[in-house]
């Protein structure tokens, strides 16, 4: 078992809706869906390389959750650490046009946005569970 040794990195992009969805989906995993089982890594710190994040992603399976098809989180993990164990692109779930809508403050999150968050978190959980099963 590698419980608590699966990393999840969201892009948390500030320029578009997809970034907020990616962030909230990862937070939902941390707090509700897989509490205590997810190691969340800060993408900017991961890239800065001085917080131990890169070493974590080299050693343990890490999932990228990106807000748009630029897939910055996935590319960063693969550039600096290792091939990702899985990746989720919010744009593939909610559509590119929707994902690129203007950035969303958490105080303006609607039921529709939460539906996007739930779908993204569910997709990330599927990947998470696959990794977990393979580790047993």
């Amino acid at each position, binding site marked *: 078992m590698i419980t608590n040794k699966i990393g999840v990195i969201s892009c948390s992009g500030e320029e578009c809706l997809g970034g907020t969805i990616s962030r*909230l989906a990862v937070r939902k995993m941390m707090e509700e869906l897989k509490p205590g089982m997810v190691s969340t890594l800060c993408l900017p710190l991961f890239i800065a390389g001085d917080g131990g994040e890169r070493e974590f992603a080299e050693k343990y399976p890490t999932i990228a959750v990106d807000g748009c098809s630029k897939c*910055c989180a996935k590319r960063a993990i693969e550039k600096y650490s290792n091939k990702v164990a899985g990746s989720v692109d919010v744009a593939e779930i909610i559509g590119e046009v929707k994902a690129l809508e203007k950035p969303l*403050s958490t105080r303006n999150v609607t039921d529709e946005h939460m539906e996007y968050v739930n779908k993204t978190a569910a997709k990330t959980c599927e990947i998470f569970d696959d990794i977990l099963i393979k580790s047993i």
Partner: protein
Amino acid sequence: MSKIKVIPCSGIGKVFGLLARESVLMVTEEKCPSDTETLCLAHVVTGDDEVVAKIKGETCITMDGCAKYCARKSVEETGGIVVKSHKVPDFMKAHRGEEHGTGTALTDDGWKYAEELAEILAEDVKEIKAGVN
């Protein structure tokens, strides 16, 4: 003058990253939308030509969540000119004992603090626009 780039760290682990993110969105979306814009820090750090072209030589303000200053360092490394750099805990003194929330959601006190941070950023924008650096 092109729009001032205001960039938060958006760190995901603690409330400070969310405070940075929300304060910046208040500035770029509500307080100073015609003078400012934000860029994805995640995109900035990739060093893609597209984002380098947007930020290189441009006036930037950063709001970091912790003393690692990921936003400031990443913007500087990508060629942005950081004329003002802040971190969320710098302004905590008057807010000791308050609960500001988590990396997911802010409390009422958290929103008040984010508003205060946004005002600081908006003042920076005014100063820069007035040429007082």
